[in-house]
């Protein structure tokens, strides 16, 4: 049973991971690509770690997996914020906006 749950989680994780990668390549500008990397990438990895937790089903491993996911959720958005802020300050105009971004000072 746990193997099947883990497997499904893995598949979902795999799907989102690929989506994150494709998004990074396909999406039109850095801001939107960040949406892909940050959200989808984190979710993909989180799901795979969830699968790991399910697979091992040991307290120590589960705890570690939870910690990893928490850490990821804590750090990934901070990273994204830093990148986005830099992009804005560099003056990268978001795709689909015809004017100077408001952040450009």
């Amino acid at each position, binding site marked *: 049973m746990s193997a099947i749950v883990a497997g499904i989680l893995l598949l979902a994780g795999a799907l989102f991971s690929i989506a994150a990668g494709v998004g990074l390549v396909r999406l039109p500008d850095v801001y*939107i690509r960040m949406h892909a990397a940050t*959200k989808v990438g984190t979710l*993909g990895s989180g799901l795979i770690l969830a699968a790991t937790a399910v697979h091992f089903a040991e307290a120590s491993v589960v*705890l570690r997996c939870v910690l990893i996911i928490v850490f990821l959720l804590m750090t990934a958005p901070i990273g*994204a914020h830093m990148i*986005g802020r830099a992009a804005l300050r560099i003056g990268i105009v978001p795709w689909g906006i015809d004017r100077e*971004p408001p952040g450009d000072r």
Partner: protein
Amino acid sequence: MSSFAANLVLAAAWAMLFGAFTPLTIVSGFVVGYGVLWLLQPLVGRRSSYFLRVWYWLKLVVLFLYELLLSSIEVLWEVVTPSHISRPAIIDMPLDVKSDAGILLVTNLISLTPGTLSIDVSEDRRTLRLHAMFAEDPEAVRRQLKSGMEKWVIDAVEGT
């Protein structure tokens, strides 16, 4: 969060790391945690207790996970469809949340949830600038975030 509480939390985290709540790990965790807190005194300010907000926390976590899944599927859709349907915008949103924890949570959650990505908080901590993917109506986005994510966070972290 009082220093003592913080210390307890760290001790617990320590024990979790070792995967066993034995007296040895708790005590050693407390000692290590004490050391860490001592080292980081300038960083850790004084805060009120927060044990009562467990419920709000749970709610926050569940809602958040749901939103994360939702947003990912949204992006997934954007990725797999041949054309880009997004209408992005940079939006400034006033912030009511005040504490570090609150700001961190709000911005992180906004980043991880559908269509929005925190980009910066102004120096006076009053405004959050974010990138929204589907922002035909910026005002709607603002409203939605304020009543959703920010409210949940305030409930969980800063509520009375």
